[in-house]
């Protein structure tokens, strides 16, 4: 028998909206009028599970898992078109970052596996050297996210190497201890 799909109120998480609201950048989220400026302006909208406007309607209705497990938050390239144009001045890109953090924390970032691997390794580079080291970042990213695909990266890697884009040795910034203190403090604040 064909059954109609109905969503029961009991499966929805009505605290989700307040959860996002309390995070940095989430403060205007309740003021969304669902106009669609964000989705219309988003260059990545076509490949997203839900374009940004719908993400906001899902948050409001309490569809927590649908939001956190969607590819939307990982396909956001932080171009800020939506945030600049939003008539209610919602910091949409910031909300996407907030969603990424929750998704990673709760292990719901399956569709964001590659993107989160890149982000994590990038942060590791910054912690280690005070700036990015492309060669190590690429190596670590490929090993952690796409190990069986490693050989396919060789031609591209060779071209980058030939053009001097993949330095063998990392460059450390001066006084890296001070930067690490700052980053540690941020971590502490986030935990609070």
């Amino acid at each position: 028998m064909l059954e109609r799909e109905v969503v029961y109120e009991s499966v929805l998480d009505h605290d989700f909206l307040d959860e996002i609201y309390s995070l940095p950048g989430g403060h205007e989220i309740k003021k969304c009028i669902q106009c669609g400026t964000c989705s219309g302006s988003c260059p990545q909208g076509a490949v997203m599970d839900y374009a940004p406007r719908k993400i906001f309607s899902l948050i409001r209705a309490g569809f927590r898992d649908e939001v956190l497990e969607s590819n939307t938050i990982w396909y956001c390239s932080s171009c800020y078109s939506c945030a600049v144009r939003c008539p209610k001045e919602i910091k949409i890109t910031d909300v996407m970052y907030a969603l990424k953090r929750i998704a990673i924390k709760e292990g719901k970032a399956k569709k964001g596996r590659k993107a989160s691997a890149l982000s994590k390794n990038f942060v590791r580079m910054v912690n280690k050297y005070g700036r990015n080291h492309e060669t190590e970042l690429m190596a670590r990213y490929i090993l952690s996210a796409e190990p069986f695909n490693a050989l396919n990266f060789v031609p591209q890697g060779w071209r980058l190497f030939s053009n001097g884009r993949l330095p063998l040795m990392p460059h450390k910034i001066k006084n890296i201890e001070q930067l690490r203190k700052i980053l540690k403090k941020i971590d502490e604040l986030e935990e609070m």
Partner: protein
Amino acid sequence: MSERIGVYVCHCGTNIAGRVDIDEVVEFAKGLDAVTLVREYKFMCSDPGQSLIQKDIEDGLINRVVVASCSPLMHEKTFRNVCTRGGLNEYLFTMANIREQCSWVHVDVERTTDKAKGLIEAAVRRTRLQEPLTKREVPINPRTLVIGGGIAGIQAALDLAEAGKKVVLVEKEPSIGGHMAKFDKTFPTLDCSACILTPKMVSVGQHENIELMSWSEVEDIGGYVGNFNVTVRKKTRYVDADLCNGCGACWEKCPGTRVPRKGNVHEKLSIGPTTSIYIPFMQAVPAIPVIDADTCIRFKNGKCGICAEVCERNAINYDMEDELIEFEVGSIIIATGFQTFDPTPIKRYGYGKLDNVLTAIEFEIMNCASGSTGGNIRMADGSEPKSIGIVHCVGSRDKHYHEYCSRVCCMYALKYSHLIKEKIDAEVYEFYIDLRCFGKGYEEFYDRLLGEDVRFVRGKVAEITEVPIEEAEKGKLVVEVEDTLVGKVRRIPLDMVVLCTGLEAHESLADIAGLCSVSIGKDGFIIEKHPKLGPVATTTDGVFIAGACQSPKDIPDTVAQASAASSAVLSMITREKIEIESATASVDEDKCSGCKICNSLCPYLAIKYDEEKGVSVVNEALCKGCGTCAAGCPSNAISAKHFEDRQIFAEIEGILSA
């Protein structure tokens, strides 16, 4: 004096000249009988254009005028005035419409030009036969009748009274105040409704220029602009208004009740005393009670009489009867307001069947501080709801009921959300199709509500049921709705549902409109004279409209229209006299057979039968010159001035011969 006709052909920029060969038309007109002069000009309606005509009349070159330009509706008055200024009777002028009826609707230049020639020849031929008519003036009675004592009628009456004019305000309920008196708060400012309304009601009651007739209904209206004869039925209160001082002893002691004794909280909803002798609410103006004869024990079995016993001023009189009062006024303002849609026919919403499904007006009364729940939001069993759904567009934007948008529901729905959050902090769901927050401060109010954790769900509710599917739905009302922004059908369990019932024309409006000879549109509301430029006037001179009798309106718009209507009345009264149509019908008494067919045909009730002479007589003050009677008269006894048979035949011949 022979006819010397001047023909003026207007280019109307390229509106006419672009499709009509003006030179050819001019040459053609020059050849017509009695035409002594033909001119063409870019815009005849402009100052220089008008001066051309005026100068030709003054110079004695012409004594009749034909202007070939746009429609009479647009500029007939303009050119009639030119004739008058030039010293020519304005009825010796004719307009040939070669724009709306010619250049705008045809493409082929040659045939369009031919048609223009035909229209001009028709006008010229009819103009030769036209006769000068004299304008007539009638005095205007400065007194005004305002029908309806809601906020529209109150505002209109006060504006006129403040200007020193006499007003009769007729209200069918025991007190003025209308719907606004039932509200607790008003959107979007959340002003206390009673606080802003009561002072106005008191002013009406005390104003020396306002004669207030409450618990009264208009029975008959005759006459015409400036001189209407009105008959009002003063329904019996069984209380002598001259003796009563509104002390309240009667309703405090009355053993009868107008509400069901055994009903639940919702069935007993009311504001003001629920006894059989009552005032509708405590701030009533006048504060004189009425006996509800249907529930009064005295009228049922003759056994009571407590109210008469306790009344120290002996104001109670069970033998009182309705009174008919006749008076004259010069103008009428209709301000009968609205009634709310009854949602019972929408079975899937369960109103009347499911406890805790309420209409907006019931919820309004529940929120009213002086209402039976003391302003507390309660379920039928008296407990406090934890979750409330508000369903928009009930009876509005729906071809099964009313096609139009009721305009106020979005905003009062938002107001409800705010009141609920403020009073009991229950969960609130707003089920809407669109949120139409168009007025001053309205969008800001919506924005505020978005921040108050109201759950907005876009989608019209499909069904309200009490049949549960899952555990959490047991004992609840369940709303089924597609959340169109998410794209999923949702089932939402709730304690209470408020139906935002739309506004519809009051059931008494059709009768009132009939009495005043104004038209009702297919939406049931009065049709205004012009949707943009004549919003307070009607097709009947001297009859004006204010508020929701014209279309659904909120309070600010109603008050604005009421002031506009009173200012329209004032500008008429101030003239003291009014010009009335000269092109009226007249009956040739020798030919009239007294068949009375015309009496019933006349849409303005202008023809009466003279019993003595045995003929029908036209009241020229009422006649609009529509010609219906002339066409309908089987004895050919009626002729319409300015539209005589010979003039019309000449016109037809003109069209055919060109």
